[in-house]
Protein backbone atom coordinates (compact mmCIF):
# COMPACT_ATOMS: atom_id res chain seq x y z
CA UNK A 1 0.00 0.00 0.00
CA UNK A 2 2.76 2.37 0.98
CA UNK A 3 4.60 1.89 -2.29
CA UNK A 4 1.40 2.16 -4.28
CA UNK A 5 0.67 5.54 -2.72
CA UNK A 6 4.27 6.60 -3.22
CA UNK A 7 4.10 5.88 -6.96
CA UNK A 8 0.65 7.43 -7.23
CA UNK A 9 1.79 10.68 -5.63
CA UNK A 10 4.91 10.87 -7.79
CA UNK A 11 2.90 10.37 -10.96
CA UNK A 12 1.95 14.04 -11.48
CA UNK A 13 5.62 15.01 -11.26
CA UNK A 14 6.61 12.35 -13.79
CA UNK A 15 3.80 13.27 -16.22
CA UNK A 16 4.57 16.99 -15.93
CA UNK A 17 8.30 16.46 -16.48
CA UNK A 18 7.55 14.26 -19.47
CA UNK A 19 5.34 16.94 -21.03
CA UNK A 20 7.79 19.73 -20.27
CA UNK A 21 11.09 18.14 -21.21
CA UNK A 22 10.38 15.22 -23.53
CA UNK A 23 7.25 16.22 -25.45
CA UNK A 24 7.91 19.95 -25.04
CA UNK A 25 4.29 20.63 -25.87
CA UNK A 26 3.62 23.17 -23.13
CA UNK A 27 3.26 26.74 -24.37
CA UNK A 28 3.56 28.44 -21.02
CA UNK A 29 5.76 26.26 -18.76
CA UNK A 30 5.80 28.61 -15.76
CA UNK A 31 2.02 28.83 -15.61
CA UNK A 32 1.68 25.10 -16.22
CA UNK A 33 4.00 24.24 -13.33
CA UNK A 34 2.10 26.65 -11.08
CA UNK A 35 -1.18 24.99 -11.94
CA UNK A 36 -0.07 21.38 -11.61
CA UNK A 37 1.92 21.78 -8.40
CA UNK A 38 -0.71 24.05 -6.85
CA UNK A 39 -3.57 21.70 -7.61
CA UNK A 40 -1.77 18.52 -6.50
CA UNK A 41 -0.53 20.12 -3.30
CA UNK A 42 -3.98 21.45 -2.41
CA UNK A 43 -5.68 18.12 -3.12
CA UNK A 44 -3.15 16.15 -1.05
CA UNK A 45 -3.31 18.54 1.90
CA UNK A 46 -7.10 18.50 1.96
CA UNK A 47 -6.99 14.74 1.57
CA UNK A 48 -4.69 14.45 4.59
CA UNK A 49 -7.26 16.11 6.87
CA UNK A 50 -10.08 14.00 5.43
CA UNK A 51 -8.43 10.72 6.46
CA UNK A 52 -10.12 10.71 9.86
CA UNK A 53 -13.49 11.20 8.20
CA UNK A 54 -13.15 8.24 5.83
CA UNK A 55 -11.42 5.81 8.24
CA UNK A 56 -14.63 3.79 8.55
CA UNK A 57 -14.27 2.83 4.86
CA UNK A 58 -10.52 3.03 4.20
CA UNK A 59 -8.10 3.50 6.99
CA UNK A 60 -5.16 5.50 5.68
CA UNK A 61 -4.36 7.27 8.95
CA UNK A 62 -0.95 5.67 9.19
CA UNK A 63 -0.02 7.21 5.82
CA UNK A 64 -1.03 10.68 6.96
CA UNK A 65 2.56 11.83 7.42
CA UNK A 66 3.54 10.62 3.96
CA UNK A 67 0.52 12.26 2.31
CA UNK A 68 1.18 15.51 4.16
CA UNK A 69 4.84 15.46 3.17
CA UNK A 70 3.92 14.90 -0.46
CA UNK A 71 1.54 17.86 -0.18
CA UNK A 72 4.45 19.91 1.11
CA UNK A 73 6.72 18.58 -1.65
CA UNK A 74 4.41 19.92 -4.38
CA UNK A 75 4.01 23.20 -2.49
CA UNK A 76 7.81 23.37 -2.42
CA UNK A 77 7.98 22.88 -6.21
CA UNK A 78 5.34 25.62 -6.49
CA UNK A 79 7.56 27.87 -4.37
CA UNK A 80 10.66 27.00 -6.43
CA UNK A 81 8.74 27.81 -9.61
CA UNK A 82 8.06 31.26 -8.18
CA UNK A 83 11.59 31.93 -6.98
CA UNK A 84 13.63 30.32 -9.75
CA UNK A 85 11.64 30.41 -13.00
CA UNK A 86 9.25 33.27 -12.32
CA UNK A 87 11.41 35.66 -10.27
CA UNK A 88 14.73 34.29 -11.60
CA UNK A 89 16.25 34.40 -8.12
CA UNK A 90 15.95 38.17 -7.94
CA UNK A 91 15.71 38.28 -4.15
CA UNK A 92 14.83 41.96 -3.81
CA UNK A 93 11.98 41.32 -6.26
CA UNK A 94 10.83 38.24 -4.33
CA UNK A 95 10.84 40.04 -1.00
CA UNK A 96 9.13 43.13 -2.37
CA UNK A 97 6.39 41.08 -4.03
CA UNK A 98 5.98 38.95 -0.92
CA UNK A 99 5.46 41.99 1.27
CA UNK A 100 3.39 44.05 -1.16
CA UNK A 101 0.92 41.74 -2.79
CA UNK A 102 -1.74 39.94 -0.74
CA UNK A 103 -1.91 37.24 -3.40
CA UNK A 104 1.78 36.48 -2.90
CA UNK A 105 2.07 36.88 0.90
CA UNK A 106 -0.99 34.74 1.57
CA UNK A 107 0.68 31.98 -0.44
CA UNK A 108 3.99 32.59 1.31
CA UNK A 109 2.49 32.40 4.82
CA UNK A 110 0.79 29.13 3.91
CA UNK A 111 4.06 27.81 2.51
CA UNK A 112 6.02 28.64 5.66
CA UNK A 113 3.41 26.94 7.82
CA UNK A 114 3.82 23.83 5.67
CA UNK A 115 7.60 24.14 5.87
CA UNK A 116 7.43 24.30 9.66
CA UNK A 117 5.16 21.24 9.72
CA UNK A 118 7.42 19.32 7.37
CA UNK A 119 10.49 20.01 9.52
CA UNK A 120 8.74 19.12 12.76
CA UNK A 121 7.26 15.92 11.31
CA UNK A 122 10.42 14.07 12.39
CA UNK A 123 9.57 11.75 15.25
CA UNK A 124 11.49 13.47 18.03
CA UNK A 125 10.41 16.96 16.99
CA UNK A 126 6.84 15.86 16.38
CA UNK A 127 6.41 14.99 20.05
CA UNK A 128 7.30 18.51 21.00
CA UNK A 129 5.50 20.41 18.26
CA UNK A 130 2.52 18.29 17.27
CA UNK A 131 0.06 20.63 18.92
CA UNK A 132 1.11 23.31 16.43
CA UNK A 133 0.21 20.99 13.58
CA UNK A 134 -3.38 22.25 13.96
CA UNK A 135 -2.03 25.20 11.95
CA UNK A 136 -2.78 23.10 8.87
CA UNK A 137 -6.37 24.38 9.06
CA UNK A 138 -5.16 27.96 8.93
CA UNK A 139 -2.84 27.10 6.04
CA UNK A 140 -5.71 25.46 4.15
CA UNK A 141 -7.85 28.58 4.54
CA UNK A 142 -4.98 30.68 3.15
CA UNK A 143 -4.45 28.22 0.30
CA UNK A 144 -8.12 28.45 -0.62
CA UNK A 145 -7.99 32.26 -0.67
CA UNK A 146 -4.78 32.09 -2.72
CA UNK A 147 -6.46 29.72 -5.18
CA UNK A 148 -9.53 31.94 -5.57
CA UNK A 149 -7.36 35.03 -6.07
CA UNK A 150 -5.38 33.29 -8.79
CA UNK A 151 -8.49 33.07 -10.98
CA UNK A 152 -9.36 35.80 -13.42
CA UNK A 153 -12.99 34.79 -13.23
CA UNK A 154 -14.78 32.04 -11.35
CA UNK A 155 -16.58 29.45 -13.42
CA UNK A 156 -18.75 26.49 -12.52
CA UNK A 157 -15.82 24.11 -11.96
CA UNK A 158 -14.11 26.51 -9.56
CA UNK A 159 -17.33 27.13 -7.66
CA UNK A 160 -17.61 23.35 -7.31
CA UNK A 161 -14.16 23.17 -5.75
CA UNK A 162 -15.05 25.91 -3.29
CA UNK A 163 -18.30 24.15 -2.36
CA UNK A 164 -16.34 20.92 -1.85
CA UNK A 165 -13.87 22.74 0.39
CA UNK A 166 -16.72 24.28 2.42
CA UNK A 167 -18.30 20.82 2.77
CA UNK A 168 -15.01 19.39 4.07
CA UNK A 169 -14.75 22.30 6.51
CA UNK A 170 -18.32 21.68 7.70
CA UNK A 171 -17.77 17.96 8.32
CA UNK A 172 -14.45 18.61 10.07
CA UNK A 173 -16.16 21.09 12.37
CA UNK A 174 -18.97 18.64 13.04
CA UNK A 175 -16.42 15.96 13.85
CA UNK A 176 -14.67 18.25 16.34
CA UNK A 177 -17.95 19.15 18.07
CA UNK A 178 -18.97 15.50 18.40
CA UNK A 179 -15.52 14.61 19.73
CA UNK A 180 -15.64 17.36 22.31
CA UNK A 181 -19.12 16.42 23.50
CA UNK A 182 -18.33 12.73 23.90
CA UNK A 183 -15.26 13.29 26.06
Amino acid sequence: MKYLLFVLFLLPLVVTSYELFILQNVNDPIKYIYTVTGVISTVLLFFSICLSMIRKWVNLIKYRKMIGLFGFFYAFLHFLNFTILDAQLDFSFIIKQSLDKPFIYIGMIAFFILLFMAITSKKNLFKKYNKYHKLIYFALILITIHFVMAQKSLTFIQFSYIILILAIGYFKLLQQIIKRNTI
Partner: protein
Amino acid sequence: MYKLTKKDWEISENEVTSKELFDNRRTFLKLGAASVIASGSIMEALAKEKMPIKNLKFTEDPNPNNLILNTYEQITSHNNFYEFTTNQRKVKDMAHTLNTKNWTIKVDGLVEKPMTLDFDDLLKKFALEERIYRFRCVEGWSMVVPWIGFELSKLIKYLKPLSSAKYIRFETLYDEQMFPDQKNKVFNAIDYPYVEGLRMDEAMNELTLMAVGLYGSSMPKQNGAPIRLIVPWKYGFKSIKSIAKISFTDKEPLNTWQKENPKEYGFYANVNPKVDHPRWSQARERVLGKFFKQNTLMFNGYEKQVAHLYKGMDLTKDF
Protein backbone atom coordinates in the same frame (compact mmCIF):
# COMPACT_ATOMS: atom_id res chain seq x y z
CA MET B 1 10.82 71.46 -46.05
CA TYR B 2 8.45 68.59 -46.38
CA LYS B 3 10.20 65.28 -46.13
CA LEU B 4 8.63 62.01 -47.11
CA THR B 5 9.41 59.53 -44.37
CA LYS B 6 8.99 55.81 -44.41
CA LYS B 7 7.22 54.03 -41.60
CA ASP B 8 9.11 51.46 -39.55
CA TRP B 9 7.42 48.56 -41.22
CA GLU B 10 7.41 49.92 -44.78
CA ILE B 11 9.82 48.42 -47.24
CA SER B 12 11.72 50.33 -49.88
CA GLU B 13 10.59 50.17 -53.50
CA ASN B 14 13.48 48.02 -54.69
CA GLU B 15 12.60 45.32 -52.18
CA VAL B 16 9.05 44.98 -53.50
CA THR B 17 8.54 41.92 -55.66
CA SER B 18 7.37 42.77 -59.15
CA LYS B 19 3.76 41.91 -59.94
CA GLU B 20 4.59 39.24 -62.51
CA LEU B 21 6.90 37.45 -60.18
CA PHE B 22 4.32 37.69 -57.42
CA ASP B 23 1.55 36.34 -59.66
CA ASN B 24 3.78 33.53 -60.82
CA ARG B 25 4.78 32.56 -57.31
CA ARG B 26 2.66 29.41 -57.31
CA THR B 27 4.42 28.03 -60.38
CA PHE B 28 7.69 29.09 -58.90
CA LEU B 29 6.91 27.43 -55.59
CA LYS B 30 5.75 24.25 -57.30
CA LEU B 31 9.01 24.08 -59.27
CA GLY B 32 10.95 24.62 -56.11
CA ALA B 33 8.93 22.08 -54.18
CA ALA B 34 9.26 19.50 -56.94
CA SER B 35 13.00 19.84 -56.93
CA VAL B 36 13.31 19.23 -53.20
CA ILE B 37 10.53 16.70 -52.79
CA ALA B 38 12.96 13.89 -53.55
CA SER B 39 15.05 14.71 -50.53
CA GLY B 40 11.93 15.07 -48.48
CA SER B 41 13.64 16.71 -45.57
CA ILE B 42 12.25 20.16 -46.28
CA MET B 43 8.74 18.80 -46.68
CA GLU B 44 9.18 17.05 -43.40
CA ALA B 45 10.34 20.25 -41.78
CA LEU B 46 7.33 22.09 -43.18
CA ALA B 47 5.01 19.43 -41.85
CA LYS B 48 6.61 19.63 -38.45
CA GLU B 49 6.02 23.36 -38.36
CA LYS B 50 2.36 22.71 -39.19
CA MET B 51 2.20 25.82 -41.31
CA PRO B 52 -1.14 26.80 -42.79
CA ILE B 53 -1.73 27.07 -46.53
CA LYS B 54 -1.51 30.73 -47.45
CA ASN B 55 -4.73 31.99 -48.94
CA LEU B 56 -4.48 35.75 -48.49
CA LYS B 57 -2.81 38.29 -50.76
CA PHE B 58 -0.83 40.83 -48.79
CA THR B 59 2.31 42.92 -48.70
CA GLU B 60 4.93 41.38 -46.47
CA ASP B 61 6.35 42.95 -43.35
CA PRO B 62 10.17 43.05 -43.69
CA ASN B 63 10.40 42.69 -39.90
CA PRO B 64 12.93 45.51 -39.43
CA ASN B 65 13.28 44.84 -35.70
CA ASN B 66 14.06 41.16 -36.35
CA LEU B 67 11.40 39.96 -33.96
CA ILE B 68 11.46 36.22 -33.46
CA LEU B 69 8.10 34.84 -34.49
CA ASN B 70 6.20 32.34 -32.41
CA THR B 71 5.23 29.23 -34.32
CA TYR B 72 1.81 28.84 -35.90
CA GLU B 73 1.23 25.96 -33.52
CA GLN B 74 1.92 28.12 -30.45
CA ILE B 75 -0.19 31.04 -31.65
CA THR B 76 -3.16 28.82 -32.43
CA SER B 77 -3.05 26.51 -29.41
CA HIS B 78 -2.87 29.02 -26.56
CA ASN B 79 -5.91 31.25 -26.67
CA ASN B 80 -8.05 33.26 -24.32
CA PHE B 81 -11.53 33.06 -25.75
CA TYR B 82 -13.90 32.89 -22.80
CA GLU B 83 -16.94 32.43 -25.06
CA PHE B 84 -15.66 28.85 -25.40
CA THR B 85 -13.78 28.17 -22.18
CA THR B 86 -11.36 29.76 -19.76
CA ASN B 87 -8.94 26.89 -20.42
CA GLN B 88 -6.40 28.24 -22.90
CA ARG B 89 -5.38 24.81 -24.10
CA LYS B 90 -8.91 23.70 -24.94
CA VAL B 91 -10.12 26.63 -27.02
CA LYS B 92 -8.58 25.22 -30.19
CA ASP B 93 -10.62 22.02 -30.02
CA MET B 94 -13.85 23.78 -29.11
CA ALA B 95 -13.76 26.64 -31.61
CA HIS B 96 -15.28 24.65 -34.49
CA THR B 97 -18.79 25.70 -33.40
CA LEU B 98 -18.05 29.25 -34.49
CA ASN B 99 -19.58 29.74 -37.94
CA THR B 100 -18.06 32.61 -39.88
CA LYS B 101 -20.01 32.17 -43.11
CA ASN B 102 -21.78 35.31 -44.38
CA TRP B 103 -20.31 37.29 -41.51
CA THR B 104 -21.56 40.84 -41.16
CA ILE B 105 -20.64 43.76 -38.93
CA LYS B 106 -23.29 46.21 -37.82
CA VAL B 107 -22.19 49.85 -37.70
CA ASP B 108 -24.21 52.38 -35.72
CA GLY B 109 -24.03 55.36 -33.37
CA LEU B 110 -22.50 58.72 -34.27
CA VAL B 111 -21.88 57.95 -37.91
CA GLU B 112 -23.06 59.58 -41.13
CA LYS B 113 -24.88 56.49 -42.29
CA PRO B 114 -25.48 53.43 -40.08
CA MET B 115 -24.94 50.31 -42.15
CA THR B 116 -24.15 46.63 -42.16
CA LEU B 117 -20.76 45.65 -43.53
CA ASP B 118 -20.23 42.36 -45.30
CA PHE B 119 -16.96 40.72 -44.30
CA ASP B 120 -16.15 39.43 -47.79
CA ASP B 121 -16.66 42.93 -49.20
CA LEU B 122 -14.19 44.33 -46.68
CA LEU B 123 -11.51 41.99 -47.98
CA LYS B 124 -12.08 43.34 -51.48
CA LYS B 125 -12.22 46.95 -50.35
CA PHE B 126 -9.03 47.15 -48.31
CA ALA B 127 -5.58 45.97 -49.40
CA LEU B 128 -4.12 43.58 -46.86
CA GLU B 129 -0.73 43.93 -45.28
CA GLU B 130 1.31 41.86 -42.89
CA ARG B 131 2.21 43.34 -39.51
CA ILE B 132 4.62 41.49 -37.27
CA TYR B 133 3.70 42.64 -33.79
CA ARG B 134 4.51 41.76 -30.21
CA PHE B 135 1.42 40.61 -28.35
CA ARG B 136 1.40 40.90 -24.56
CA CYS B 137 -1.33 39.43 -22.36
CA VAL B 138 -2.19 40.98 -18.99
CA GLU B 139 -1.65 37.49 -17.51
CA GLY B 140 2.05 37.85 -18.21
CA TRP B 141 2.57 35.77 -21.33
CA SER B 142 3.51 37.16 -24.70
CA MET B 143 4.20 36.18 -28.28
CA VAL B 144 5.15 37.62 -31.66
CA VAL B 145 2.53 37.20 -34.37
CA PRO B 146 2.61 37.93 -38.11
CA TRP B 147 -0.92 39.32 -38.40
CA ILE B 148 -2.55 40.06 -41.75
CA GLY B 149 -5.06 42.88 -41.95
CA PHE B 150 -5.72 46.52 -42.75
CA GLU B 151 -5.47 49.67 -40.68
CA LEU B 152 -8.54 50.48 -38.64
CA SER B 153 -8.07 54.13 -39.65
CA LYS B 154 -8.91 53.18 -43.25
CA LEU B 155 -12.15 51.55 -42.17
CA ILE B 156 -13.04 54.54 -39.98
CA LYS B 157 -12.43 56.95 -42.86
CA TYR B 158 -14.71 54.82 -45.01
CA LEU B 159 -17.44 54.73 -42.32
CA LYS B 160 -17.33 58.53 -41.82
CA PRO B 161 -18.11 59.02 -38.13
CA LEU B 162 -19.53 62.38 -37.05
CA SER B 163 -17.15 64.89 -35.50
CA SER B 164 -18.96 64.37 -32.18
CA ALA B 165 -17.71 60.77 -32.07
CA LYS B 166 -14.92 60.55 -29.51
CA TYR B 167 -14.74 56.79 -29.02
CA ILE B 168 -15.18 53.62 -31.01
CA ARG B 169 -16.87 50.64 -29.37
CA PHE B 170 -16.69 47.01 -30.49
CA GLU B 171 -18.75 43.95 -29.69
CA THR B 172 -18.01 40.28 -30.19
CA LEU B 173 -20.77 38.20 -31.75
CA TYR B 174 -23.47 37.06 -29.34
CA ASP B 175 -24.78 33.65 -30.37
CA GLU B 176 -25.48 30.99 -27.78
CA GLN B 177 -25.44 28.26 -30.41
CA MET B 178 -21.87 29.06 -31.39
CA PHE B 179 -20.42 30.07 -28.01
CA PRO B 180 -21.09 27.54 -25.23
CA ASP B 181 -20.21 29.85 -22.34
CA GLN B 182 -22.79 32.40 -23.50
CA LYS B 183 -25.42 29.78 -22.71
CA ASN B 184 -24.32 29.63 -19.06
CA LYS B 185 -26.47 32.18 -17.34
CA VAL B 186 -25.35 31.80 -13.71
CA PHE B 187 -21.84 30.41 -13.93
CA ASN B 188 -20.62 32.13 -17.07
CA ALA B 189 -17.02 33.34 -16.94
CA ILE B 190 -17.85 36.94 -17.91
CA ASP B 191 -20.81 38.98 -19.15
CA TYR B 192 -21.54 38.74 -22.86
CA PRO B 193 -21.32 40.09 -25.45
CA TYR B 194 -17.65 40.99 -24.98
CA VAL B 195 -17.18 44.75 -25.32
CA GLU B 196 -14.06 46.78 -26.00
CA GLY B 197 -13.36 50.36 -26.94
CA LEU B 198 -10.71 52.84 -28.02
CA ARG B 199 -10.39 56.58 -27.96
CA MET B 200 -10.67 57.88 -31.51
CA ASP B 201 -7.03 58.98 -31.70
CA GLU B 202 -5.94 55.50 -30.56
CA ALA B 203 -8.19 53.94 -33.17
CA MET B 204 -6.73 56.18 -35.89
CA ASN B 205 -3.13 55.34 -34.95
CA GLU B 206 -1.35 53.63 -37.80
CA LEU B 207 -0.45 50.63 -35.64
CA THR B 208 -4.09 49.76 -34.92
CA LEU B 209 -5.07 46.89 -37.15
CA MET B 210 -8.21 45.05 -38.17
CA ALA B 211 -6.73 41.59 -38.52
CA VAL B 212 -8.25 38.94 -40.77
CA GLY B 213 -5.48 36.40 -40.70
CA LEU B 214 -2.04 35.35 -39.52
CA TYR B 215 0.89 33.57 -41.13
CA GLY B 216 -0.62 34.41 -44.52
CA SER B 217 -3.81 32.53 -43.98
CA SER B 218 -7.34 33.37 -42.77
CA MET B 219 -7.83 33.94 -39.06
CA PRO B 220 -8.16 30.65 -37.17
CA LYS B 221 -11.43 30.45 -35.25
CA GLN B 222 -9.72 30.20 -31.88
CA ASN B 223 -7.83 33.42 -32.65
CA GLY B 224 -11.00 35.40 -33.33
CA ALA B 225 -12.18 34.64 -36.85
CA PRO B 226 -13.09 36.16 -39.17
CA ILE B 227 -12.02 39.64 -38.07
CA ARG B 228 -10.53 41.00 -34.87
CA LEU B 229 -8.85 44.10 -33.55
CA ILE B 230 -5.11 44.30 -32.85
CA VAL B 231 -3.78 47.11 -30.65
CA PRO B 232 -0.17 46.04 -30.13
CA TRP B 233 0.77 48.52 -27.38
CA LYS B 234 -2.12 47.43 -25.15
CA TYR B 235 -2.74 44.24 -23.21
CA GLY B 236 -4.25 41.50 -25.31
CA PHE B 237 -7.76 41.78 -23.93
CA LYS B 238 -8.21 45.09 -25.77
CA SER B 239 -7.76 43.21 -29.05
CA ILE B 240 -11.37 42.04 -29.25
CA LYS B 241 -12.16 38.93 -31.29
CA SER B 242 -14.87 38.00 -33.79
CA ILE B 243 -16.23 41.52 -34.15
CA ALA B 244 -19.94 41.73 -34.99
CA LYS B 245 -20.71 45.31 -34.11
CA ILE B 246 -18.98 48.69 -34.25
CA SER B 247 -20.48 51.83 -32.69
CA PHE B 248 -19.23 55.39 -32.54
CA THR B 249 -19.98 57.22 -29.33
CA ASP B 250 -19.13 60.35 -27.36
CA LYS B 251 -18.82 58.46 -24.05
CA GLU B 252 -15.98 56.20 -22.95
CA PRO B 253 -17.24 52.65 -23.53
CA LEU B 254 -17.28 50.38 -20.48
CA ASN B 255 -15.16 47.46 -21.65
CA THR B 256 -15.86 43.94 -20.42
CA TRP B 257 -12.89 43.51 -18.08
CA GLN B 258 -13.31 46.94 -16.54
CA LYS B 259 -16.92 46.04 -15.84
CA GLU B 260 -15.90 42.68 -14.33
CA ASN B 261 -13.20 44.06 -12.09
CA PRO B 262 -12.52 47.82 -12.24
CA LYS B 263 -9.76 47.61 -9.63
CA GLU B 264 -7.67 45.35 -11.82
CA TYR B 265 -8.55 46.33 -15.39
CA GLY B 266 -8.94 49.83 -16.74
CA PHE B 267 -10.06 51.35 -20.01
CA TYR B 268 -6.59 52.08 -21.37
CA ALA B 269 -4.80 48.82 -20.53
CA ASN B 270 -1.53 50.08 -21.97
CA VAL B 271 1.34 47.66 -21.54
CA ASN B 272 3.34 49.28 -18.77
CA PRO B 273 6.11 47.48 -16.87
CA LYS B 274 6.02 50.19 -14.20
CA VAL B 275 2.37 49.75 -13.26
CA ASP B 276 1.74 46.41 -11.58
CA HIS B 277 -1.40 44.38 -11.68
CA PRO B 278 -2.69 44.13 -8.07
CA ARG B 279 -1.77 40.45 -7.94
CA TRP B 280 1.37 40.22 -10.01
CA SER B 281 4.19 42.32 -11.38
CA GLN B 282 4.05 43.41 -15.02
CA ALA B 283 7.78 44.09 -15.27
CA ARG B 284 8.52 40.82 -17.06
CA GLU B 285 6.79 38.46 -19.43
CA ARG B 286 6.87 34.81 -20.41
CA VAL B 287 7.28 34.40 -24.15
CA LEU B 288 5.26 31.36 -25.18
CA GLY B 289 7.46 28.30 -25.53
CA LYS B 290 10.22 29.69 -23.30
CA PHE B 291 11.14 28.66 -19.78
CA PHE B 292 12.50 31.99 -18.62
CA LYS B 293 11.11 35.47 -18.72
CA GLN B 294 12.15 38.66 -20.47
CA ASN B 295 11.68 42.32 -19.58
CA THR B 296 8.47 43.96 -20.72
CA LEU B 297 8.96 47.12 -22.75
CA MET B 298 7.04 50.36 -22.19
CA PHE B 299 3.97 50.37 -24.45
CA ASN B 300 5.10 46.87 -25.45
CA GLY B 301 7.96 48.37 -27.46
CA TYR B 302 5.82 50.86 -29.41
CA GLU B 303 6.65 53.90 -27.28
CA LYS B 304 7.91 55.90 -30.26
CA GLN B 305 4.63 55.49 -32.11
CA VAL B 306 2.11 55.95 -29.29
CA ALA B 307 3.60 57.72 -26.25
CA HIS B 308 2.34 61.09 -27.52
CA LEU B 309 -1.26 59.86 -27.19
CA TYR B 310 -0.94 59.82 -23.41
CA LYS B 311 1.04 63.00 -22.79
CA GLY B 312 0.07 64.59 -19.49
CA MET B 313 -1.92 61.58 -18.34
CA ASP B 314 -1.17 59.76 -15.11
CA LEU B 315 -0.90 56.17 -16.28
CA THR B 316 -1.04 54.84 -12.73
CA LYS B 317 -4.59 56.22 -12.54
CA ASP B 318 -5.60 55.79 -16.18
CA PHE B 319 -4.35 52.23 -16.37
